[in-house]
């Protein structure tokens, strides 16, 4: 059982993909940002600025395909742009909504 980005490597190695939970559209709280209540309360302005930058980053990911593929490839140290493109598609499907708790 693997998650991205390793699943694309598995496909490249001609391994069988028996089930894909992304295609099955299973709702799940997968990844989030967390911090201590004390830090969030005391530094709320700093955290809000962080979230503003983060949301703009998501916008770039969703709208600037070529740049995002290169950036993800660079970040994960993987040269295969095709693989990065598949990972990008996966993330675009998965991060359809970014929920922020006020």
């Amino acid at each position: 059982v693997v998650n991205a980005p390793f699943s694309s490597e598995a496909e490249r190695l001609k391994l069988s993909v028996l089930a894909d939970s992304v295609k099955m559209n299973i709702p799940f709280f997968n990844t989030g940002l967390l911090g201590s209540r004390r830090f969030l309360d005391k530094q709320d302005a700093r955290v809000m600025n962080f979230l503003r930058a983060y949301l703009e980053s998501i916008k770039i990911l969703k709208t600037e395909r070529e740049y995002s593929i290169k950036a993800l490839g660079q970040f994960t140290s993987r040269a295969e742009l095709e693989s990065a493109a598949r990972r990008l598609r996966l993330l675009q499907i998965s991060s359809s909504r970014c929920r922020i708790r006020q």
Partner: protein
Amino acid sequence: MKKLHALILAIFSIVAVTCVEAQEKIRIGLGSISLQSGLVHIAKDRGLFAKYGLTVESIYIPGGSTNVQVLVSGNLDLSQLSDAPGVAANLEGADIVYFAGLLDKLNYQLIARSDIKSIEQLKGRKIRRQPLRFVRRLRHARNAQARRHRPGQRSDDSFKSVMSRRGLQRSLQEVSTARW
């Protein structure tokens, strides 16, 4: 003239130092090198954090449980993690909360050798799940609520969910999961 140049240089130096000091720092722990943590890289690369007056130091700390420990110790300001470690730590009494959710779908795939073409062929075989040190620690946890939720087994839960959706709950009982 030389004095004027020196004065201008001094003013620019003071302004530059003030600008650097105005940047607030945030240390964020990344639990994995993944698609999601790539967002921090993009924000840095495009100068988005600087735009909002932040200097963000991203620190890769593999393993959710270790990441949470560093967060609780105060050496990190924020963390980007999957659900289980933070929830488990919260149930154990740590004063940490999730304040943003990024992915709302499971993103796992069940991969097999090329000669295995269907889930039914997994009967009697071993499945390798991703290492989850936290699970073993949690088994010894005193908090009954935490034990009931059994956080830290996301890949296993994904696998079970996929199997049950395919009507293969019985097959699941015949498949063993192992770590090596």
